[in-house]
């Protein structure tokens, strides 16, 4: 899943400045690493000198506070670099290429974290080094791709739905079929996502199938539906559908909730009645990392409500952090806005999980769709 730069500049600056002040005010608060028990299973040294470690994280552009490296330096004395990736695939390509990628902490979606774990590329999470795990919603520790947060820690979560221009559509879309078989005014003004599992989602859900189905017949039916939908499609788009809506180049798009620019007049987000997914973007520590203590300290720091609420306030993504969500200004999340969805509502969505060798079926579907 890919993310765009934050959409609101001014509030971002204000909120970041505010968060910075808050951090400065309670600077040198609790020592997060000292509380860790000396577990023999863990190879990590809870008292490691973090000043000697260097962190490199890879994340979507605009998905973390710009001054995060400065704050990490201030708090732990650890030098931190931020690398950017545009899509899950891009970073997966680098992480699975065999060679040491130089990344310590990677931000990837849940099913990709699962794949990385099965490939033996990620370090198990050492919970004793992340006391702030307690801030997570209980629901966020039982996600199907990683029950108990054994190898990943959720950063943001949300769902996929239809983002649309209220003023340019005659009626509100309520079903995935509205997207796949759009009304006349939306013809050639619809986009679907590129990433294969989300590409298949609208068609699978429209047929009331699981997003994780491996049944050839069901996938075939979804494909047929998508082939028909393609006639009315503007393009496949994972990254700029929000912009397209704003410009009126598109009037109805498949969108991740946080990325639907609902702050704009006339732009609304709707989870279709057939239901949708629950996606989670997670943080994983790479096995090849030589700075695992600092990596855990960073994750713990991000789970701090002060830091974690940044994502909700600035990029309007829900964070699975109870303490952080409670801090968010209610004015930012009016009823009905994606940010106002509760964990219970979110959990009605189905988690996309990695399908192992069967994932080829989705690659094929995507190729078939794009080749014709």
């Amino acid at each position, binding site marked *: 899943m890919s993310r765009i730069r934050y959409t609101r500049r001014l509030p971002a600056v204000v909120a970041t400045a505010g968060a910075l002040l808050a951090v400065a005010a309670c600077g040198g608060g609790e020592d997060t690493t000292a509380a860790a028990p000396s577990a023999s299973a863990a190879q990590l040294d809870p008292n490691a000198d973090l000043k000697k470690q260097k962190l490199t994280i890879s994340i979507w552009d605009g998905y973390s506070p710009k001054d995060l490296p400065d704050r990490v330096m201030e708090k732990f004395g650890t030098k931190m670099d931020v690398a950017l990736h545009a899509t899950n*695939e*891009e970073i*997966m*390509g680098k992480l*699975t*290429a*065999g060679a040491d990628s130089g990344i310590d902490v990677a931000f990837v979606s849940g099913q990709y974290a699962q*794949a*990385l774990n*099965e*490939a033996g*590329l990620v370090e198990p999470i050492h919970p004793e080094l992340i006391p702030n795990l307690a801030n997570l919603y209980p629901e966020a520790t039982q996600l199907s791709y990683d029950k108990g947060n054994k190898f990943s820690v959720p950063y943001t979560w949300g769902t996929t739905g239809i983002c649309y221009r209220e003023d340019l559509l005659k009626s509100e879309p309520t079903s995935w079929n509205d997207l796949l078989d759009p009304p006349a005014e939306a013809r*050639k003004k619809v986009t679907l996502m*590129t990433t*294969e599992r989300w590409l298949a989602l609208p068609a699978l859900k429209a047929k009331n199938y699981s997003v994780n189905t491996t049944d050839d017949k069901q996938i075939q039916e979804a494909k047929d539906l998508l082939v028909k939908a*393609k006639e009315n499609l*503007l*393009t*496949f*788009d994972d990254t700029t559908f929000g912009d397209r809506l704003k*410009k*009126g*180049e598109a009037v109805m798009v498949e969108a991740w909730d946080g990325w639907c620019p609902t702050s704009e007049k006339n732009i609304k987000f709707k989870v279709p009645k057939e239901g949708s997914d629950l996606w989670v973007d997670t943080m994983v520590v790479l096995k090849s990392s030589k700075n695992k203590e600092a990596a855990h300290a960073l994750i713990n720091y991000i789970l701090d409500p002060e830091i974690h609420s940044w994502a909700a306030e600035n990029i309007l993504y829900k964070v699975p952090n109870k303490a952080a969500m409670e801090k968010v200004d209610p004015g930012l999340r009016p009823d009905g806005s994606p940010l106002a969805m509760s964990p219970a509502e979110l959990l009605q969505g189905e988690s996309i999980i990695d399908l*192992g*060798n069967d*994932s*080829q079926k989705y*690659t*094929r579907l*995507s*190729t*078939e769709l*794009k*080749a*014709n």
Partner: protein
Amino acid sequence: MSTTSTPPDRDRAAEPSAPPSGGRRGRRGRGAGRFLAGLLFLGPGLTYLIVLLMIPLALVFSYTVFQRGRFGGVVYEATGENFTRLLDPLYLDVLLSSLKLAAIATAVALLVGYPTAYMIAMLPRRWKTIALVAVVLPFWTNFLVRIYAWIVLLSGPGLVNTALIDLGLIDEPLELLYNEGTIVVGLVYSYLPLMVLPLYAAIEKLDPTLREASANLGARPARTFLSVTLPLTVPAVLTGCLFVFVPSFGNFIVPELLGGGHSAMVGNLIRDQFLTARDWPFGATLALALVAMLVVLLLAQAWTARRYSRA
């Protein structure tokens, strides 16, 4: 200027086997020293190319007979499955449509490039250089940025549509972007200079007296062109076509940015196998198919060019 602006391949392709020039006499009897000197000159470069070109290619092509690893890489168990999959109509279709798009782009580049090259060759010396530089200049800016410029021009709210609407010629924006036509435009735009340069070089070298003779004998300009100029420039036409065709065929950026995913080309397929599907063996097999098709074309080109230069 000609050395900086002309792709070096031109001379090589036009004269595939430039013989080592002159001085063959009097060198015999220095065999050992000559061998050492040759080694000194050829050794470093060849070693480099063997390690970083031949071995990688050998690795990629050897992967075609192995199975995919669950998370990328390969499992060293022999299989013919990758080649069977290649024959799947789905992938054959992609190969063929890439072939088609690259061929159309090449033809369009030739149709646009030939008159341009001809005109440049006929210009006075001073303007010639300027016109040539002007053809090459866009080629020296970032490839992605040049492609991106077309999005600004052609998209729904783009400048062409806005202008047409403002002029009252249309009411609704035209669907200019995201189709096969846009892919062709993008490819032609990207590689046109590679067509113009070899054509220019060949037309420039033509002996003007031939054309004059033809004209004096009463042939009309069109006739002169068809029976004198064109045949003499066939090798350059082939070279230019090759230069446009090769990068077009393997391209994955233009179809992605300008095609909007409406028609994948073989480059997209290979990229996706390596990055998205993490099926390296099949990606390698597609790459092998791509290279094999190019080799056939190269041989055909060399053969035709030799026939024409002999005639």
